[in-house]
């Protein structure tokens, strides 16, 4: 194992223990680990964004165009998005904050135009078709489809506030609440499962990479 990798594993193991120390109680070691993580995460993201996007898309065509682009005036078209981007940053200057509205208007208008047809045809209509599909084939599939339809209907009634939730509407709404509770329960169960998976991942790192790989020098 290369020395750089060994150092990296040691740092990762120490940071893991620093974060785990919160399980006992909040403490300065945990806070230090948290701040190191945040600092590195921001620095890493900045580098990735700079070298993958800002430099090749904005700086390179203007400052280092290369032989292929040098005589091509088309490269200056990147100035338009750069200026619109600067307008957004100008929100921090109160007297010039109004400029950002142009950028936001363009962005929101463009995105809405792009989203509406795609989301309606790609998500909304297929979901609607699936919800009101014919019952069956077979009683089991039919029952599933019926429960799905009932759940959707009752949940919509629960969120329908134009009618007072009394009588039939109140009862149907209460059934809707039961469906919502089941959905929350399923979501929470899955969330617990996910968090345990992450803990297992950390333990696998500590056992395999740190203890076996670095301390005991065993092959992975």
């Amino acid at each position: 194992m290369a020395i750089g990798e060994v150092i990296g594993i040691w740092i990762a193991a120490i940071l893991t223990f620093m974060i785990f120390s919160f399980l006992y109680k909040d403490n300065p070691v945990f806070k230090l680990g948290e701040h190191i993580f945040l600092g590195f995460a921001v620095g890493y993201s900045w580098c990735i964004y700079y070298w993958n996007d800002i430099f090749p898309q904005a700086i390179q065509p203007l400052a280092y165009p290369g032989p292929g682009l040098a005589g091509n005036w088309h490269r200056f078209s990147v100035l338009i998005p750069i200026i619109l981007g600067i307008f957004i940053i100008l929100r921090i200057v109160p007297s010039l904050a109004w400029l950002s509205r142009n950028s936001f208007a363009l962005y929101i208008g463009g995105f809405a135009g792009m989203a509406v047809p795609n989301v309606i045809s790609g998500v909304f209509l297929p979901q609607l078709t699936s919800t009101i599909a014919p019952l069956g084939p077979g009683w089991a599939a039919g029952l599933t489809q019926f429960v799905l339809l009932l759940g959707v209907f009752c949940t919509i009634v629960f969120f329908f506030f134009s009618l007072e939730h009394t009588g039939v509407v109140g009862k149907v709404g209460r059934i809707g609440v039961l469906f919502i509770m089941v959905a929350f329960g399923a979501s929470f169960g899955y969330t617990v499962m996910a968090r345990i998976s992450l803990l297992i991942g950390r333990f696998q790192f500590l056992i395999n990479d740190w203890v076996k790989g670095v301390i005991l020098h065993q092959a992975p």
Partner: protein
Amino acid sequence: MIEFMRRFLNLDRRIIYAIVFFCVLLPLIYPIRAKFTPTEEVKRAYNAIEALEPGSAIIISCDYGPSTMPENYTFYVALLHQCFRKQLRPIILTLVDYGPGLCLRGLKEVLESKDSQGKLLYPDRQAGRDYVFLGFKPGSTSVMLGIGQSFTATFPNDYQNQPTTTMPIFREITALGDCKYIVDIAAVGLPEFWLPYASAREKVPMSVNCTAVSVAQYYPYYTAGQFQGLVGGMKGSAEFETLVGMEQITGKIPDATRGMPAQNAVHIFIVLSIILANVMHISVRRADLSARRAG
């Protein structure tokens, strides 16, 4: 007895943490083989990819970070093995800034994997011809719509800064519509963007590997047939590893499969704790009510 229950209900949370600690640690130190049958959701994802013709291009979008590696990275590695074994051509990209390192690590791990005789499993796979790693680009929907028009215009260079226009893979596969499948490996909400802006728009079927947290959110898309397969969490990844035959390929128990006994142990502990705590809570409440009635 009631006093004991009362004390138990106010148990220090650190004792619970300690029990969870041992529930995770012991099965990892002393591995037990957990038997599980792949579920329909995972089988469908596997079978759909297995049914593709050799040479077909498949988009793999790695939209996850280090924090969800046990759930997503394990699937990514198994998926790459399936692709290379089936001679499919993966076009790998990431739409999250923390993705490139993990994409590259998984790709290297699979390309460098060896059989029991020490020979490389996929010695003739060539970057730019049999697979390509395009790297990261921000603006998820713009990227999806961009590759719907042209891969080379959206990604003029790959992650290693090689021009994509000269790559043999992009002579045949010019845009997303030329690909046969999309797999989004996601720890974030991007499958809900891949669906309308790529899969439905370009009529390319897709499957999703997501964290367990998101499974409930994505089930409606699976039941509607919009996602052909849904591989959820570490359990889904372990099932996928079983279907791909990772243990036979690499000669060792793969990570997600190895983590499942620990997962089971913690789940059993949580379920027992919930039952026990509820029984005790009801008993204590009843005892308090009777004491109040008595005087």
